[in-house]
């Protein structure tokens, strides 16, 4: 219990500190921080709209935005377990989303029961492939994964924009998006699950089966990392590569494996985006989900439960940010990005909070 309290306390302090700094920024820009935060939180977590009517919209969209963040948070956390920082989830999720769309467009003749899993596998495999590249470069040449994953983000966007523009776009369409995937490749929205039990969850809210898949991925992550030999080996390689090597673990293989799984998890964002939401590949769709995944993983302390909670927080920020953008005079939705950066910074300075806590104990 004491452990749990400590695990929760530092992330919580980081979030509160970040909001405090954010408040100063908002003041400096010329808006009222209390009003901005009220808009942010009520439009993300409120059950009632401005007219006082009950609505699922806020929570529905918050969880919808949390879904890709759970995937990217898990992706970053898995790489962390092996001592690697995967800044390339952004590229990996684009590659995964494109692969899902490609499968859904190319194999229009297949029945849904085969096509849906096939699209999902394509998203995962493509993301895993894109993630494995920096893994191999690190294992084989010692090249730093941080720089390589960043470079691969640019390369992914370049190649995909070529593919969309030249091969997969509706001819003449000025928007950079692919044609639609087959209708039977769509996955169910939450509306479909709740309607039979009499809950009227509007169909326009894009929260879909991928959210459940994300929760399942959390369970799988836990089992894999803490209950299997592979997970043990990845953690051992991450904690102390030399000791692991002495213990008979092939550290290079763990690096490639961890990066591939990490990429695969990032690729699953494509399931939410393509199969559950837009039903096509839309270039530039990611609202920095890959980078936010770093914040999600760090704040969630690389644990699935923490990752779900912090993904919901950041999902709420994305949702609320849109309203802040509209309903305040000066603050734009970029506030969310700023808060994210500050949160990561504070989380990385855990020593600062430990010091504060120790001091206050000593005084008290």
């Amino acid at each position, binding site marked *: 219990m004491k452990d749990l309290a400590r695990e929760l306390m530092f992330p919580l302090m980081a979030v509160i500190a970040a909001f405090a700094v954010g408040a100063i920024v908002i003041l400096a820009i010329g808006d009222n921080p209390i009003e901005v935060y009220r808009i942010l939180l009520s439009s993300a977590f409120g059950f009632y709209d401005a007219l006082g009517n009950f609505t699922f919209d806020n929570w529905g969209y918050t969880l919808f935005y949390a879904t890709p963040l759970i995937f990217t948070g898990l992706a970053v956390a898995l790489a962390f377990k092996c001592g690697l920082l995967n800044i390339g989830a952004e590229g990996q999720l684009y590659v995964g989303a494109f692969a899902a769309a490609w499968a859904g467009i190319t194999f229009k003749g297949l029945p849904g029961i085969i096509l849906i899993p096939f699209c999902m596998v394509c998203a995962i495999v493509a993301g895993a492939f894109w993630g494995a590249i920096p893994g191999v470069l690190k294992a084989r040449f010692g090249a730093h994964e941080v720089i390589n994953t960043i470079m691969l983000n640019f*390369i992914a966007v370049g190649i995909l924009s070529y593919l969309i523009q030249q091969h997969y776009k509706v001819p003449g369409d000025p928007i950079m998006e692919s044609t639609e995937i087959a209708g039977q490749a769509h996955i169910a929205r939450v509306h479909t699950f709740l309607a039979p039990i009499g809950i009227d969850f509007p169909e326009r809210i894009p929260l879909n089966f991928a959210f459940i898949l994300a929760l399942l991925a959390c369970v799988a992550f836990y089992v894999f990392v803490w209950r299997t030999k592979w997970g043990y080996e990845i953690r051992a390689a991450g904690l102390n590569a030399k000791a692991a090597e002495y213990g008979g673990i092939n550290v290079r293989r763990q690096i490639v494996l961890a990066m591939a799984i990490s990429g695969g998890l990032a690729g699953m964002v494509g399931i939410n985006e393509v199969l559950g939401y837009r039903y096509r590949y839309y270039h530039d769709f990611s609202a920095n989900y890959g980078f936010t995944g770093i914040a999600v993983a760090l704040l969630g302390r690389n644990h699935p439960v923490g990752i779900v909670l912090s993904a919901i927080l950041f999902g709420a920020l994305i949702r609320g940010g849109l309203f802040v953008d509209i309903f305040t005079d000066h603050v734009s939705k970029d506030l969310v990005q700023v808060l994210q*950066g500050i949160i990561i*910074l504070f989380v990385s300075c855990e020593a600062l909070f430990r010091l504060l806590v120790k001091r206050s104990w000593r005084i008290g």
Partner: protein
Amino acid sequence: MGEILNITLIASTIRLSTPIILAALGGLYSERGGVINIALEGIMLAGAFTASAVTVFTHNPWVGLLAAIIAGVLVAGIHGVATIFYRADQVVSGTAINILFLGVPALLSGALFDSTGATPQLPRDQVLPDVRIFNPQSMPTLASVFNQKPLVYVALALVVLSYYVLRNTRFGLRLRAVGENPEAADTAGVSVVKTRMSGVLISGALAAMGGAYLSIGQNSLFTRNMTAGRGFIALAALIFGKWDPVGAFLACLLFGFAEAISIRMQGTVNIPNQFIQIIPYVLTIVVLAGLIRRATPPRAIGIPYTKS
């Protein structure tokens, strides 16, 4: 192909290398002192935004440049405080700063200029002027190569200066000492904290100049994420150049050349633009994979120092 390889290619190589050279030299001071500086990208963005925003208000690009340098030092200071005083993971702290400064310029440009991430275009007489060494009318070729922004020459001078500082000055020797063996340096009476912090702050000033070059030199406005990975490319150049100012300089020229080639090839060669645009990024990966194993980083890089 003959059309592509000509004198203006040299000119644009110099132009395009400059921001990377400045950032890479910045990274050099930080990393030789033992602090990884992934934050170069974010610092460049901070510098680029500050330079153009301040120039919009003061109508003087030199004031803009000065403000950018101050901003760079402040942002690097955050990285320094986090990593040196609070022992934050250097890569994570740098990443936080990069994410932060994707957002801060956008947030501020919304508040200051009512735009979605860009600053207003500066009139031509309010960007940094070219240094006029040759008369463009009588000697157009030489003028196109040598009449560059002052920061181009500043960057070149800094390469030489950094070479000298690291090898021959007391500060340079101390910086290298705290990057290689902080315990020994500490025992010898060198303040590890102060020396590392100085290195990080210098890196902020230089990287911010690189950013300012982009927004008030090469271009006349700041646009969202206008550095496009140059901070990371600078880091790759630093590694490729084996953490040596001259080596890093040559590596930066290579990256500048790749970018110059890719710009020249667009529309002239029968390869899709998107493939040409990714050349510098692919080159970065190839360079890191091929040569890093022969480069040895400063021994204490990435390790926070605790006095025992």
